[in-house]
Structure formats: C-alpha cells, structure tokens
C-alpha cells in the first residue's frame, strides 16, 4: 500500500470574522499529484499556505508523515509550536510562489545554496554542487551565476523551483506558479513541473491551468467557498462534473 503523506482534518481558518476555510479534510498519498482548482476567494491558496504555516489556522490539524504541523495540544490547550520547530517542519515541504520571490541580491546558484547551507548544514562546495545539479535539471546551468534581475520570468520561476526542490522536500507546494508569467513563458515552467511529477515527486498545485491540471494530476480538488466542493480523478471530474458549481467553474475557465 502507498503511504499516507499528508493528512488534513477539519481545517478551519479565519481572518478576523471572515472564515475562509470552513472545515477542509484531505488525505494525500506519497507520490500523488493533486491540483487544487476553484475561483478566487475559494480558499485554495490559503489551504496551501496553512500546510507550511505561512498562515496560522484556528482549528483542525495538518499532519505530514504523521507529524502534527504548527500546533500542539498540551493539557488540553492548543498552542503554536516553537519557532525553531516550525522552521524545521517547513523544511519538510518546498514551495514555489506566484511572484517567484527569488532573493534579488543573490545569484541563481546562491539562491539555491542558501537553504542548503543554513538549514541543511551543508558546506559551500557541497551546496554548490547540489545547486548545480538542480539548476541543470531545470535547464539553467548556464545561468547559475546570473542574478534574478538578469533572468526572464520563466527562468526565475524555474530557479525558484530548483531552490525548493534542492532542499529535498517530502512534498512540493505550487502556488499559481504560472499566473504572473507571460503566456509564452508558461510552458517551460509547466514542463519542469511535469518532469518532477514523472519522477514521483508528491505535489500540491494551486493552478488556473486547467489543461495542465487535467494532464498531470492524479487527483483534482475543487474548492468552493472554503470547502472541498468536489474531488476525484481529473478525467471524470472535468468531463462529468457532479456539482453545478464545478460545471459552471469549468465553463468559465475555458477548459475544453
């Protein structure tokens, strides 16, 4: 049997009085590629950001490899784990952002090396060779000594993916990674992600690329108003949506 990697139970998240996640349950096995789709404001990005504690959440639990993320309950009182422990847990996941968020004062190689040195405790030479390997993998070995400002959007996003992947995470989180790209640069990034999927990397992707979600995902989750509206195999879901909301969403998002 494949092993459970991620287990989300009754996840609740509020911004003040507004509840954006109203009880999300989700179990993900090792090696799965899950796309999260849904209209803006449905909570898909928020859910992703809870998994690596970029967002606090007020109820429910998230487990990765059986470890409870971010919070612990001691004597019946739920409290945030210590900062160091949360940092260690965050390193179990890798994340790529919509805006790339590369460190602009560091070359591509140094962007990848920073976490390897500071978090994984590698020496400079080892970190450099790991960075080389992953930058090569995303097709940017020749650009490794370029600064982010000298790279195109698509190249920057590939460096950002290499930076996350080089840390050897158990789970990769992709947050609308092609939304800020010019259309002609989208494909090079999707190809990289597809390659990772083929290698068996476990991935959660928040995406608006319906065609891509259809092709690459083992499962699709449709978020609707802070809850999972529908989930399943992409071939069934995209062709025969069970709910009216998903049917409308698919129609409006030009999947055909």
């Amino acid at each position, binding site marked *: 049997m494949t092993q459970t990697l991620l287990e989300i139970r009754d996840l609740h998240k509020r911004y003040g009085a507004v509840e954006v996640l109203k009880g999300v349950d989700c179990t993900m096995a090792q090696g799965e590629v899950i796309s999260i789709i849904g209209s803006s404001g449905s909570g898909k990005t928020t859910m992703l950001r809870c998994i*690596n*504690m*970029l967002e606090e959440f007020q109820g429910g639990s998230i487990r990765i490899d059986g470890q409870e993320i971010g919070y612990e309950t001691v004597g019946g009182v739920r409290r945030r784990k210590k*900062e*160091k422990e949360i*940092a*260690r847990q*965050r*390193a179990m*996941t*890798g*994340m790529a*952002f919509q*805006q790339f*968020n*590369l*460190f*602009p*004062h560091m070359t591509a190689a140094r962007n990848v090396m*920073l*976490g390897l040195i*500071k*978090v994984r405790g590698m020496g400079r030479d080892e970190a450099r060779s790991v960075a080389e390997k992953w930058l090569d993998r995303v097709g940017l070995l020749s650009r490794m000594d370029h*600064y982010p*400002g*000298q790279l195109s959007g698509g190249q920057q996003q590939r460096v*950002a993916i290499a*930076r*996350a992947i080089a*840390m050897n995470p158990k789970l990769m989180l992709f947050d609308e990674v092609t939304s800020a790209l010019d259309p002609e640069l989208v494909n090079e990034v999707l190809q990289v992600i597809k390659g990772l999927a083929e290698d068996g990397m476990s991935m959660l992707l928040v995406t608006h690329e319906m065609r891509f979600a259809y092709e690459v995902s083992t499962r699709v989750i449709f978020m609707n108003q802070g809850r999972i509206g529908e989930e399943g195999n992409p071939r069934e879901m995209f062709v025969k949506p069970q709910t009216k909301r998903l049917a409308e969403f698919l129609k409006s998002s030009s999947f055909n």
Partner: protein
Amino acid sequence: MGYSLNFAAVWRSFDLLLEGLALSLGLAFAAILVGCVIGLATAFGLVSKNIAFRKPAGLYVTVIRNTPILVLVLFSYFALPQLGVRLGKIESFVLTLAIYSGAYLAEVFRGGLLSVPPGQREAGLAIGLTEMQIRTSIILPLMLRNVLPSLSSTMISLFKDTSLAAAIAVPELTFEARKINVETFRVIETWIVASCLYVATCSVLAALLRAVERRLAVPR
C-alpha cells in the same frame, strides 16, 4: 571695504584646523556607529507587531527628533552632571550625537525595512530559515541597498552636526576655527578655510558612499 584677503595667518595654524577636522571625523564616526546600532534596533521596534516594542521606539524617535540638537548637547553636558551623570566633553558629545543620530537613522532604516517585499520573508520561511536567519541573510542586505542613498545624506548631515560640539568647547574643526579667528582677526579667511574643509570632507564622504552603493548594486 578696506579688507584685503591674507591667508598667511590661517595657513600658519592650518595644522590646528586639520587636528580639529580629525576630531570632527572621529566624533562623527563613533557617534554614527553607535547610532546605527540604536537606529537598527529602534527600526525593528517601529515595525514590530508587538506594542511593547513599538511604543517605546516611537516615543524615543518623537522626543529626540523634535528637540534641537544644540539643546540636547547642552543638556547632556550641563544638566546631566546635576543628575549625577558626569561625562567628559567628548564622551558627552559622542553619546548625545549617537542618541540623536539613532532617532534619524531609525526612520531611515524603518523605510528600508518596509521596502523589502513580504514575499522575501515568506520565501525564506518556506525553505526553513528562522526569523533571525531571514533578517541577517535577506532583509538586512536588501534593506541596506535600499537605504544607501538616504543613509548617505543623513550621515553627511550628522557629520556637519559635530560642529555643535564647539558649544561645549570640544576642540573640533569649528572650535579651532573660532580660536584662530579670535587670535588672528582674519575672520573671512578663517571661515572660508573652515568651510572649504567641511565641503571637501563631505564630498569625499559622499563619493565613498556612492562607491559603496555602486559596489553593492544588484546587476540587472
């Protein structure tokens, strides 16, 4: 209008002016160094979510920035001893200028901190860095680059503020110039030379800081 320029008397005492200038630079350097530490800590206080840091930091900046520096200089030299704090002229002035510059630099640094996009911190968190590592490896280097232009003008104006040490007879450039002025009666010459020394020093400082700025500029 019978005044004819004669710099000879000033040149004879030129070494005194240079010694004064050296002391001015020393005062500025020490004060700004301490001021940078105070300013940085205060800036983090100003942007802190925690009110226990934010309020005192805000109060410090408000009080110091709204008090004339000459008043602060006179206060620490003449009033503090009455309260039992006895400092030498130089120590007293350096401390005052450090506290004064801390308030100005705090505002400069605060702007710099706010100019770093939140996504930078999140990217650091996502790879497992701690808040402290994010500060030292990402936020500070980016912030420093962003503030260099305004840091440079703040530093130059703080350097010029060392002339106020003359008010408590610290033998820096302005004090020495006044002495030469009194001894030689070459009023115009003395103050022209002193001004030129200030201008030249500030220009060199500005050029140095511009060089640092160019050196640190991120290629694009």
